[in-house]
C-alpha cells in the first residue's frame, strides 16, 4: 500500500541516560521528500535517525515508518549511510564487498555473481565502477563516501538516512555526493533524510528542512524552515550572516 507519509512521529521523546535527547517531536515526512535535518550540536539529529532505524528506544510518543513501527519495517526498505569518519579503515575489504554487503545484509565470503552485478550497477550510479576491486584502505574520503552511497542504493531503498555525509570529504566530494543524491531522488520514489551541519549547501538540494534543537523549531519547505528567524531561535544567534556569505562550511552552524 502506498503511504502518503514515509515517517510520522507523535510526541516523540527520547532519554539517553539522564540526558533528554528529543522532546515532544511531532513530524510528518511526506513520501518522496528530500529532508535536511540541521541544528546545533546535541540537538538530537543523529538520535532521530537512530530512532527511525530502530537502534534507539524512545520513552514516550510513537514513530511510524511507512505505517509500521521501526522494528517491523523491512530492512530492504531502509538504507543507512553512517559517518565515514567512524569507519574502520583497517578492515580488509574490497569496495565491491562493501557494496555487496548492502545487498546481502551480511558480509559476503565470496561475492556471488548476482551480488557482484548488483554492486557494479550501484557503483555505476555513483560513478565508482573503477573502485570495485580497490581495498577500502586505499580510498580517499570522497571515494569511500561514493562506495557507501552505492552500498545504500544497491538495495533500491524507499528511505535513505544519511548522517553527516559531508564530514571528512572535500568540496568536490560533497558536490559529487549531492549530484548523485539529486539524480537518484529525481528518478525514483525515494525519501531522503540527511543530517548535516551545512545548511547552506543542503538548502539548494533538499525539498524540506527540519530545524531541530531537541524540539522541532521549524519544519517545512527548505528555505522557509531555514529562515533567519528560525535559525536564530535554534542557534541563539544570527545565522543568516553565515548562510548568506557562502564562506563557512563543514563546521557547526
Amino acid at each position, binding site marked *: 500500500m502506498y503511504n502518503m507519509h514515509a515517517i510520522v512521529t507523535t510526541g516523540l521523546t527520547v532519554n539517553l541516560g539522564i540526558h533528554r535527547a528529543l522532546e515532544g517531536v511531532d513530524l510528518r515526512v511526506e513520501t518522496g521528500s528530500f529532508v535536511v535535518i540541521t541544528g546545533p550540536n546535541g540537538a538530537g539529529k543523529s538520535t532521530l535517525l537512530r530512532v527511525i532505524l530502530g537502534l534507539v528506544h524512545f520513552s514516550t510518543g510513537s514513530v511510524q515508518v511507512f505505517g509500521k513501527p521501526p522494528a517491523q519495517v523491512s*530492512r530492504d526498505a531502509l538504507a543507512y549511510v553512517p559517518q565515514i569518519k567512524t569507519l*574502520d579503515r583497517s578492515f580488509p575489504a574490497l569496495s565491491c564487498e562493501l557494496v555487496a554487503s548492502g545487498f546481502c545484509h551480511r558480509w*559476503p565470503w*565470496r561475492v556471488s555473481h548476482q551480488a557482484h552485478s548488483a554492486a557494479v550497477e550501484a557503483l555505476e550510479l555513483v560513478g565508482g565502477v573503477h573502485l570495485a576491486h580497490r581495498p577500502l584502505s586505499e580510498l580517499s574520503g570522497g571515494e569511500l563516501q561514493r562506495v557507501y552511497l552505492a552500498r545504500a542504493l544497491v538495495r533500491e531503498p524507499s528511505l535513505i538516512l544519511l548522517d553527516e555525509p559531508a564530514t571528512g570529504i572535500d568540496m568536490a566530494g560533497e558536490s559529487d555526493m549531492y549530484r548523485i543524491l539529486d539524480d537518484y531522488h529525481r528518478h525514483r520514489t525515494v525519501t531522503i533524510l540527511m543530517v548535516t551541519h551545512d545548511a547552506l549547501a543542503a538548502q539548494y538540494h533538499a525539498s524540506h528542512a527540519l530545524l531541530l534543537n531537541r524540539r522541532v523549531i521549524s519544519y517545512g519547505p527548505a528555505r522557509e524552515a531555514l529562515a533567519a528567524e528560525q535559525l536564530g531561535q535554534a542557534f541563539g544567534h544570527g545565522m543568516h550572516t553565515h548562510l548568506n556569505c557562502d564562506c563557512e562550511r563543514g563546521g557547526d552552524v
Partner: protein
Amino acid sequence: MSELFSLAFMQRALIAGVLTALTAGYYGVFVVQRGLSFLGSGLAHAAFGGVALALLLNQEPLWVAVPFTVIVALLITWVRERSGLGADTVIGIFFALAMALGIVFLSRIPTYATDAFAILFGSILTVSWADVTAAAVVTGVALATLPLWGNWAYATFDRETALADKLPVRRDDYLLSVLLAVTVVAAAKVVGIVLISAFLVIPAAAARLVTRRFSAMTLTAVVFGATAALAGLIGSYLLDLPSGATIILLQCLGFVGCLVVAWLKNH
C-alpha cells in the same frame, strides 16, 4: 621422527593442539579486527582462576574451568555493554580479579607447584583424552557456527550498520565471548595460560598483513595457526622445549615473515 606419532601422549597433544589452533585462528580474526586482543589475555587468566579452583576442589580442571571462564566472559561483555567503560578497562579488572582468585585458591593447596607450572606454561605430557575430546567439541561448535561468519564479519566491520540491518549483534557478542572462553580453556593444556592469547592474536594479525579480503584473512589465519601448532609441537618434542613457547615462537617467526612480505608488496 616417525616414532613421535606413535607415542600416545604426542598423539593427544597433536590432535588437541592442532584443533584448538584451528579454532583460535578462526575466532582470532574477529578478536583482532574488533580491537579485543586483550580479551584473549583476560580470558586466559580467568581460565587460570578456574583451573586453580578445580585443583582446590580436586575436580577435573575442564569441568570447572569452562563454566568459570564462560561466566567471566559473559560478565566482561555485560559490564562493557552496560557501564560505557572501555573494553580494555573492563577486561583489565576481571583479568586481575580472576588471577587474584586463582592465587588464593592455589595457596590453599599444600602441593600445587607442579600443577601450577603446567597450567601457566602448558605441558604436552598432561594432555588427557578429556582434553582431546574438549578440543574436538570446540572445533565442532566452531564448524557449526560457520553460517554466522557473515553476520559476525558484518558487525565487526561496522556494528551500527549491522544493527540497522536488524542483525542480532548483541546476541552474537555474547555468543562469541562464550565460544572464545571455551576455546581458551581447551587450548590451555597445550599452550599454557601465559601464552594462550597469542594463539588468538598472532595468526590473525599475520593474516591481516598479507590479505586484502576478510574471507582470505580468516582462511589464512586458520591455516597459519594450525601449521604453527603442528610444527611447534614436533619441534618441542625433538628439541625438548616447552610446547607452548615453541608454538608461539614459530608463530612470531611467521608474523615477521608476513611483515616482510607486506613491506615488499608496498615498496
